[in-house]
Each structure stands twice: as structure tokens, then as C-alpha cells.
């Protein structure tokens, strides 16, 4: 079975939107303001109802909403149903009619449902049509200064990381890392021209699998998944070579972190290019000043330990500061605004809650929150630096839709 037959439901938005033609609703669509899935459901309901009534009958109609907030106007739904029934030779009339029909918008395990109670002289019949779930269009933050999030991908399957790597002037490559597959999409001029997927053998399965994609160039990436490392080539067939990650080193810029297999954190050992080792408490994530950050020595490092504390270390084994209210994911970022060391940090809470991302500037062993925090529609599952160092890649899960969302978070210097 092709891996693409699974429940992958990609929605390309935001940063990716420029590859796609912007499609505005046509005049014909505007005349019926119901979303497509609702139109389809109304059509199916009218078909079932007409089948129950028989030809040429007059009906009266009542529409109500017993769900908790259907995203459509009752008048629009009524109008669509009546129009459809007219086309089938039925006549809408004011009550009393041959057949009073009551349509209710209900909600079930599967989502919204249209239910028609068709009252006839001798019986009452019920027709039920589920409204197909549509990919929700995520909220696009406005142009306000501060943190900006662009959702670039959504899918039902759990996502660990993603990366977008430009090839040449027209081609771009998307790599998606799932818990058991690596997928690649090649776009040329905005059109998806190729796609492929390869399974990833899981070693040391965990309930909170960590994964990270490191792009070497457009057609060569490395994927780190728990204790496994996969080197991937796209030429254009996807070739993967996966093996146990010897030494459990995850290269993170000028240093590498040592992963703890079977767990969801790093051991605390950070290896520098000079092979020197620094030992910190076991951590979920860590950040240090990016090259060129003025006034900040390379020995500075914040780690978010498995005890939940974000601690700042400076050339010694003991922390010089502890920051409250930081979540488990942090990343250094070069915003171009100001000249200090800036860190994005997720919020506290757990994976049943919505999250926030906040920008901090670290000065004199203090973390100063900059601007408003960015609200996410669910928990942040991964936060990694983007290849340009100016933005961050975020994987989160939308609590409302249940979809996994890949997004980029960047900073505008408005204020």
C-alpha cells in the first residue's frame, strides 16, 4: 500500500502559499454560502427525504440546531434544502403540509450530523446524514508586531519534525518526519511533482518519541528519531540508511547533544567541536547564544531540565539563574531586533492544554519577556531552530481539530 493512502491530509498554507494559486470563491459559490461539505450533506439529506416522501409532495420545513454551535446559518441551510427539494419536484409550503419535516443539526462522535424527522400520516421516518469533516483553516495571525506563526502543514498522523529546503529557483523540497516514516514532497513552481516515503525502523520505542531533521542540502538530510539516525538521499527516489545512532549524538550547530535512548530527553552531555565535554543536568532542550550575538560569551547556556527547571549556566557546574514559567522547549533565535541573546520558550502546562510561546531576551542573568506571547491552539510538541536561525520550526497538536500542525514562528520588529 502506498504510504500516501494513509490519513495524511496536507494543507499547504502560510509560507507555502506563494506556491499555490489563491483561489477566491467564485460568484456561483457565493450565491450558496454553505461550505462544500454542508452542501453535500444537504444534497444527500434531500435525496433521502425525497425518497421517503415520494414524488410531488408538499412539505413544510423547520430547521433548528441542537448541536453546540454549528458553523452555518440556519436560513442558509433551509434555503439550500428547499432549493434541492424543488429540483426534485417537491413543494415547500407553510404548515400544514402533506409532510412536516424537521431538520436538526446535531453533533455526534463523528462531527456534525443532519437529521430529518419526516412526519407522515401513519409514521415518522428519520434520515441521518453526517457532515464530512473539512480540513479546518487555521487562524492566521495578523500583521501585528511580535511573534508571528504561519501554519504550513496539517495532518492527522503524528508529526515529529519538518523541514522546507529550497532546491533551485523553482523547486522546493519538503521533508516530514513521522514516528515511523520519513516523507518527501518535491514541488516545482508550486505544483507537487514528486513524493515518496520510507519506513523508519524504531529502536527503543517511547511514548514521547523525539525527532529532528537536519538538512545538509536540498536532497540530503539526516533524521534523528530517538536512538536511530537515518541519512536520507532524494535523487529523486528516496533512499534511507537507518542505523543505531552511535554515541547518540545529535548535532546542534557548533555542538552536539547526547540523547538518552528509550527516553524523551538528552543526557546533559554537550560536546563541543573541540571534543571538549560539558556536563549539564539531563535536559529536554537547550539554547546558547548564536554566533554574532553581542555581549554574550559562548559559555552561556540555558537548559530545561527533566525536573522542569530552566537554568542558566555560565562557565561553571552550578546554575547562575533559574527562570520560572518556561516550558520544556526553548530555542535561540536571531530576530534582527535588538542585539541581545533572544530565546523562544514554550509555556508550562501539559499536553491536554493550549500552549503559548514567549520571546525572552537574556541580559545580566535575567530573562526579560519581550512583547506579547503567541497563543497556540494546542500543546507544543517540538520546537527546533529553522535552518536560517531567524525563525523556529514548531510542531503542535490542535486540541480542537486533533490535527498535527507544522508551523514556523518568526519575529517582526514592529515595536
Amino acid at each position: 500500500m502506498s504510504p500516501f493512502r494513509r490519513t495524511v491530509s496536507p494543507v499547504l498554507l502560510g509560507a507555502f502559499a506563494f506556491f499555490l494559486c489563491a483561489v477566491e470563491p467564485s460568484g456561483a459559490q457565493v450565491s450558496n454560502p454553505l461550505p462544500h461539505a454542508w452542501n453535500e450533506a444537504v444534497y444527500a439529506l434531500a435525496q433521502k427525504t425525497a425518497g421517503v416522501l415520494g414524488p410531488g409532495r408538499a412539505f413544510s420545513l423547520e430547521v433548528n440546531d441542537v448541536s453546540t454551535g454549528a458553523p452555518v446559518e440556519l436560513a442558509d441551510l433551509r434555503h439550500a434544502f428547499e432549493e434541492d427539494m424543488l429540483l426534485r419536484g417537491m413543494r415547500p409550503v407553510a404548515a400544514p403540509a402533506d409532510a412536516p419535516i424537521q431538520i436538526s443539526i446535531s453533533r455526534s462522535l463523528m462531527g456534525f450530523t443532519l437529521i430529518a424527522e419526516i412526519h407522515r400520516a401513519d409514521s415518522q421516518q428519520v434520515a441521518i446524514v453526517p457532515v464530512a469533516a473539512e480540513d479546518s483553516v487555521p487562524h492566521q495571525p495578523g500583521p501585528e508586531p511580535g511573534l508571528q506563526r504561519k501554519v504550513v502543514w496539517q495532518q492527522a498522523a503524528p508529526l515529529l519534525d519538518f523541514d522546507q529546503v529550497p532546491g533551485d529557483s523553482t523547486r522546493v523540497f519538503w521533508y516530514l518526519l513521522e514516528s515511523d516514516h520519513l516523507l518527501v514532497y518535491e514541488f516545482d513552481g508550486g505544483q507537487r511533482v514528486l513524493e515518496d516515503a520510507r519506513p523508519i525502523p524504531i529502536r527503543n520505542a517511547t511514548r514521547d518519541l523525539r525527532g529532528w531533521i537536519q538538512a545538509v542540502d536540498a536532497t540530503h538530510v539526516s533524521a534523528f528519531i530517538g536512538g536511530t539516525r537515518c541519512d536520507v538521499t532524494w535523487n529523486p527516489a528516496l533512499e534511507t540508511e537507518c542505523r543505531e545512532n552511535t554515541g547518540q549524538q545529535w548535532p546542534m550547530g557548533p555542538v552536539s547533544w547526547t540523547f538518552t535512548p528509550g527516553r524523551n530527553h538528552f543526557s546533559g552531555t554537550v560536546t563541543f567541536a573541540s571534543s571538549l565535554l560539558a556536563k549539564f543536568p539531563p535536559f529536554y532542550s537547550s539554547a546558547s547564544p548564536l554566533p554574532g550575538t553581542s555581549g554574550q560569551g559562548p559559555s552561556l547556556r540555558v537548559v530545561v531540565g527533566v525536573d522542569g527547571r530552566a537554568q542558566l549556566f555560565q562557565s561553571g557546574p552550578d546554575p547562575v539563574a533559574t527562570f520560572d514559567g518556561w516550558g520544556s522547549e526553548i530555542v535561540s533565535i536571531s530576530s534582527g531586533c535588538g542585539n541581545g541573546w533572544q530565546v523562544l520558550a514554550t509555556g508550562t502546562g501539559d499536553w491536554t492544554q493550549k500552549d503559548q510561546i514567549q520571546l525572552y531576551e537574556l541580559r545580566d542573568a535575567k530573562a526579560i519577556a519581550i512583547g506579547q506571547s503567541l497563543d497556540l491552539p494546542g500543546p507544543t510538541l517540538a520546537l527546533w531552530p529553522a535552518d536560517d536561525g531567524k525563525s523556529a520550526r514548531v510542531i503542535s497538536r490542535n486540541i480542537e481539530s486533533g490535527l498535527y500542525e507544522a508551523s514556523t514562528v518568526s519575529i517582526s520588529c514592529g515595536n
Partner: protein
Amino acid sequence: MKLRLFLLVAAISVALASAGRVQTSQRPRYGGTVRAEIGAVIHSLDPLGTTSDPEEAAAKDEIGALLYDQRSADGAFSGVAGSGAFHIAQWESGKRLTLAANENYRGGRAFVDAVEIEMGRSVKDRLLDLEVGTADFAEIPPEGARRAGEAGVRVSASEAEELVALSFSSGHPIGEDAHAREALSRSIDRAAIVNFILQKEGEPAGGLLPQWSNGTAFLFPTANDAAGAKQLWSQIPGSPRIVLGYDSRDSLEQAIAERIALNARDAGITLSTEAVPAGAAGSPEPSDVRLIRLRMKSARPRDALAGFITALAPAAGLDPTPLPAAASPEQIFGRERDIVSSYRLVPVVWLPRVFGLSARLRDWKAPAAGEGWPLADVWLEQESQ
């Protein structure tokens, strides 16, 4: 529901209690032991062993789901104990059980190292231990949710998934009279049971599937109709009397049965209640109608309804024909309507599962219908140092 208010109160209490403590991060942390308390007394963990105590059977099933990786088609656990997320580390029959995380579980090792389960704890003791922080997890009865919230316990409720219903016994004359069955159904003030006995933690039930599952529950009326009941009852010749049985160990069933008796009397129906002792299962049903509690085996409407039919068809005289595997929404609704309109099974109220939790238990999600305790998915916040 008012529980929301109490959840808020509980959340505020938790926030106050945790003031000054280090807030932990979002990502799950490994380690620690969950202290769980249950009311049931489990005498054997043998998956083939049976028990007549429904509380013990339910608790055993929950623990089995933590110990075994797989179930067979009939729902029995299969494979080796310990193939699941946990294995048995210590077992004292009828007293306590310690489960340790299975390091090689194919679904990934549980975040906590162990779960200590203390058995035979009364509701009062469970609530007290939750209040003082010596327990992390305990199921509490729905009718106790309000008091638990008021006492500052962190409370979590699932969707309504347990049906309390009246099941008329086959072979009893009054149970064969459709007017009598309908009269009793119409007489019941379901809203009052929810409001006063369940303290608003539950929903009136008119159908066999809750609204969240199939979306059709609103099509079944739940309002009481004493006048209609009286009229129907008056059409029954003689002076029949209905005996309503309930589980003698179940105080909630007793309270609901007594309330139904009150409603019945208001409609002119002669009804008495009778406590049915444990172990009566299998012997001839002494009551004309029995109050029963049925938990949905699945969130999926077709599977949930099929489970109810399988469980009840023989005793209640329902049509045992299995639902098609790919039953349409209309087929599911039609079957549900047929059963409800026969009044052989009279839905009364829906109950959620209610859990009391410690403040340090994280990533908790109340289990959906058919799911077990999610103790492999939770993690524990580290105490401040």
C-alpha cells in the same frame, strides 16, 4: 454542568496549593509512582477467573488492560501478563498490588515507574486521601463529584457513558403488559434524578446512546408525563403491583429506585422496591423489573448498541439479531428506537465516570467509552526540592 464550576474551584485550589512550587515543563517526565486507591477487593488476577462482584470484575478488567497487550475477540485478555505497559511487581491478594513499568513495552515504556494500587478503600477514605495528597488517583461515584470538588479535590469526568436503565424481566406477567411498561417509563422524572440524586452530574436518558455518540438522543423524549402514565395505568385490569429490584450493595441504585417508586406512586402505579443481594445472578429473577447499570463497550454507536443488545437480549426479551457490522446511522437509530419503544428496556439516566486526581498527575485525559485507566500515559510532576 455544575461540575465545571467545581472543576474551576478545584483548579483554583490546586493553583493555591502549588504556589511556590516549581512549575514543571510540558514534556512528560519519567519516574515516580502513582498511588491509586480502589474500592474493589480483587482476590485473583487470573484472567480466566470469574467473580460475581461487578466492582471486582470491573477493577480486574482495568488492571488487566494495564498488564496485557492484547485482547481476544471476546474481550478476554490474551498473551502473557506483563506484556502490557506494566507487569506485576508485588501482589497481596485482596489488599494491594504494585505494577512496574514494562521497559520493553511495544507502545513505549510508561512514563511512571510504578503504580501502587490499594484495594478495599471506601469512598470516604479515597476522598480523604485525595484531599490530603496521599493518593494520586481514585475513581469516585458520580454523585460524590460535587462534594469532592467542594473539598478541593481535582475532579475529572468522562463523557456520560454508563446507562442506568430499567430492564423488565421476561416471564413476569406485569412485564409482558406493554401499557404497564410504558406507564412506568412515562412516570419517571429523570431530570429530578439528575438534579437531586446525581447532583447534576449526569444526563436524563431517553435513548440507548448518549447524544455525543450518535447525535440522535434528542429524538427520544425524557420529560416525565405523570398524566399520561396515569391514563395508561388505568387501562390495566386488576390491581397489579410492580416489584423493582436493585443491587443491594449499590447505594446509587437504591436512591434511584426509591425515587422511581415515588414517581410511580404520583402516577397511581403501585410499585415497591426490593434489594437484590449479591450472588443472585443466575437464580430466577425475583423482581418484575430490575434497575441495571450498563457501561458502553465502545464510543462507536454501532458497537455500543450491539454490546447492550448482547448483554440484555436474553433477560429482557429483546431481539438478539446482531447489528450489521457496517450499520448505517438510520439502521442504528431504527434499532435503538425499536428497543426503546418496546419499553422492555427503559433508559433512565446517563452517568459519566468520575476520577479524583492529585495535583501532581499530569497529561490526564478522562478515558473514552471502552477505554481503560490511562495510567501509562500520565506522568508525575516532580516535588519541589
